[in-house]
C-alpha cells in the first residue's frame, strides 16, 4: 500500500525557477504503515477515549486491589435486617463517604473493593483467553490458508464444526464438570485456568477464519512470488513475508475479541460457573442482584455499568484501531 505523501519540515530545496522564489517548498517524507495508523488514530477522539479508559482499567485491575478495602469484610451494622438491604444512602445503596459505591445487600461488603477485585478477574480471564484464541486461531488460519488442499479442508471443516457448537452450554458443562481439585490445581486458580481454557478454546475459529482469508490472498501477492523466485523457502515466506502483513488484523481482532470474552466470562459467572464465591466477579454480583434489584437497584446497576463501560471502551478502541489500520473501512 502506498503511504500518503505528507508534507512536513521546512528544509527548502534548490529552486532554479525564479518564479518560485519566496514560495515555501517543504520536503516530502514517506511514512510507514504504523506511522500512518498512529496519525489516524491520534485524530480519532472517540477511539482515544476508549484507549484511555482501557489503560485506566488495566491499571485499576493491577494496582487497585492494594488501595481498596477488604472485599470480604462484613459490615452487617450497615444492613437493615428487615429488608436485607443497606440502611442508608441513595436508593438504599449504602453509598457514603466510607463506601463510595455503597455496600452489598445482606453482607455489607464494600462494593468499590468488590468491583475493583472483579475487574482483576474479568480482565485476567479475558486477556489470557484472548491470547489463547489468537495463538490457536492464527496458527490454524495461517496453516490452512498457506498450505491449502486437504489441510485447508480439514481445518476449515473443524472451524465450521466449532461454530455449530452451542458454546455457552458447552462452556457451562465443561466448567461444571471439573471438580474442585484437578490437574494439580485447586480453588480459584483451577477455576480461572478452566475459564481461560474453555473461553479461549471455543473462540479461536472466529479469528482463524479471518487469518485464513487474509493468508489466502497474501499468498498470491507479487512480493511472495518475488521472494519465491529468489529461492525463498516456505519458512522464510511464512515468517518474513506473510506474518508481518498479518500483524494488523491480528491486533485489531484481538482488541475486539477481548470485550466478547469479558461478556462471556460475565455470563458464565452470572450462571454460577465462574470463580468461586466469595471471590468477587461482576457476573456473580448480577446473579446476587436478581432477587433484590427492585428494592436495591444500585446493586444491579453498579456491576452492570462496570461490565458496560469496560466492554464499550474495548469496542471503541478496537473499532478505532481497525479504521486506522484498514484504510478501506469507514
Amino acid at each position, binding site marked *: 500500500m502506498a503511504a500518503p505523501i505528507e508534507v512536513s519540515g521546512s528544509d527548502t530545496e534548490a529552486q532554479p525557477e525564479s518564479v518560485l522564489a519566496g514560495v515555501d517548498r517543504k520536503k516530502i517524507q514517506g511514512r510507514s504503515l504504523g506511522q500512518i495508523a498512529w496519525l489516524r488514530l491520534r485524530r480519532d477522539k472517540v477511539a482515544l477515549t476508549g484507549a484511555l479508559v482501557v489503560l485506566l482499567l488495566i491499571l485499576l485491575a493491577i494496582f487497585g486491589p492494594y488501595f481498596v478495602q477488604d472485599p470480604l469484610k462484613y459490615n452487617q451494622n450497615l444492613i437493615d435486617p428487615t429488608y436485607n438491604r443497606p440502611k442508608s444512602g441513595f436508593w438504599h445503596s449504602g453509598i457514603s463517604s466510607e463506601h463510595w459505591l455503597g455496600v452489598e445487600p445482606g453482607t455489607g461488603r464494600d462494593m468499590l473493593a468488590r468491583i475493583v477485585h472483579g475487574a482483576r478477574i474479568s480482565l485476567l480471564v479475558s486477556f489470557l483467553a484472548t491470547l489463547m484464541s489468537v495463538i490457536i486461531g492464527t496458527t490454524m488460519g495461517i496453516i490452512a490458508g498457506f498450505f491449502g488442499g486437504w489441510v485447508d479442508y480439514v481445518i476449515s471443516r473443524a472451524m*465450521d*464444526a466449532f*461454530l*455449530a*457448537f*452451542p458454546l*455457552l*452450554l*458447552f462452556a*457451562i*458443562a*465443561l466448567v*461444571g*464438570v*471439573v*471438580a474442585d481439585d*484437578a*490437574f494439580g490445581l485447586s480453588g480459584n486458580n483451577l477455576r480461572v485456568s478452566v475459564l481461560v481454557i474453555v473461553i479461549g478454546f471455543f473462540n479461536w475459529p472466529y479469528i482463524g477464519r479471518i487469518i485464513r482469508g487474509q493468508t489466502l490472498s497474501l499468498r498470491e501477492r507479487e512480493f511472495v512470488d518475488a521472494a519465491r523466485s529468489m529461492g525463498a523457502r516456505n519458512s522464510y515466506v511464512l515468517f518474513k513475508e506473510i506474518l508481518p502483513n498479518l500483524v494488523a488484523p491480528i491486533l485489531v481482532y484481538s482488541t475486539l475479541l477481548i*470485550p466478547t470474552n469479558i*461478556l462471556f466470562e*460475565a*455470563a458464565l459467572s*452470572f*450462571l*454460577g460457573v465462574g470463580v468461586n464465591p466469595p471471590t468477587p466477579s461482576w*457476573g456473580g454480583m*448480577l446473579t446476587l*442482584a*436478581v432477587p433484590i*434489584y*427492585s428494592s436495591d*437497584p444500585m446493586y*444491579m*446497576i453498579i456491576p*452492570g455499568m462496570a*461490565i*458496560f463501560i469496560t*466492554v*464499550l471502551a474495548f*469496542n*471503541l478502541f478496537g*473499532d478505532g484501531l481497525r479504521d486506522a489500520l484498514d484504510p478501506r*473501512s*469507514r
Partner: protein
Amino acid sequence: MFAYIVRRLIGAVLMLLLVSLVTFGIFFWLPKLAGQTTDQIAAGYVGKAPTKEAIQDTKERLGLDDPVLVQYGNYVKGIAVGRDFEAGPVTDHCPAPCLGYSFRSSQPVLETLVDRAPATASLAAGAAVIWLTGGITVGVISALRRGSLWDRATMVIALSGVSLPIYFTGMVSLQLFSYSVEIFPGGGQYTAITADPVKWFQALVLPWVTLAFLYAAMYARLTRAGMLETMNEDYIRTARAKGLPERTVVTKHALRASLTPIMTVFGLDLGLLLGGAVLTESTFGIPGLGRLAIDSIRSGDLPMVLGVTLLTSASIVIINLIVDLLYAVVDPRVRLG
C-alpha cells in the same frame, strides 16, 4: 442441486455425531481425566447421601464401567433403531429416535424436549422478526446518510447495545416496565400460545425487545458496513448510469448484495437461539430449552444435556443448510455445486 442437498445432509449427520461425541466426552471422559473414579461419577448421579448399593446400581444402569466409546455407541444406536433399558425385572423399550431417559425425572428426554421447545421457539421467532427489520433498516439508513447525526447517534446506540450483557438489560427493562410502571407482566409468567394468545404475547414483549435489541445492534453495524462497501461497487455506478431510480439501486442492487453475509450470521444466530436462549430465558423465567439445559447441567442430568445440545446443533446445521440454499435465490452470482 439434489446432490448438493444430499451431500450437505450427510455432512450434517457427521457434525451431529461429532457434537454428541464431544458432549459425551465432556461428561464421561473429562472427569476421569481430572482424576475421578467411576464410583465418584456414579455418586454424582445418585444424589445426596449415596449408599454403596445405589452407586453400584447406578454404575450398572448407566454402564459407567464400559469404555466411553462403547457407551457412546449404545447411545447412537438408540437414536437410530431404539434401545431397551433393563429397569429391574421390567425391560422398557424406547423407540427410535431414543434419546434416553432423564436421570432425575425418569421422563423420556424426547418428550421433555418437545414439551419445552415451543417456549424457546416463540421467543426466538418473535425476537428475530424485530431484530431483522429493525437492524437492517437502521443499518441501511445509516449507510446512506453516512456521517449524519442519525448515523452517528444510531451507531453509538448500536455499539452500546452490543456492549451490554443481556441479563442486565433484561433486569433493567423488567424493573422499568414491569415493577415501576406496570405495563408488562413480570418474569416467570410465560403462558403457552395455545392456552391464551393474549397472555402469551404480553409475557413475551419484554423478552423479545430485550433480546432483539442486542441482535439489532449487531445487525445494524453489519448492514451498515456491508452497504458502505457495496455502494462503492462498479455495478452500483452502472445501475445509476442506466438511470435507475435511487430507490431501486439501493434495494434491488446494493441491499441484495449486502444481505448474503447477514444471512450467514442470521443462520448461526437463529439456530443457536432455537436451541435455547440460555441467558434470556433465565432472566425472564421462560421455561424453554435454555432453562432446561442449565438446570440439567447443574443437576448432572447427562441424557437431558445431550438431548438439548444435539437439538441445538441440529437446528444450527439445518438452518445453515436452508441459508445456503437461499443464497442462490438472493445472490444470482452464487451457484450451488
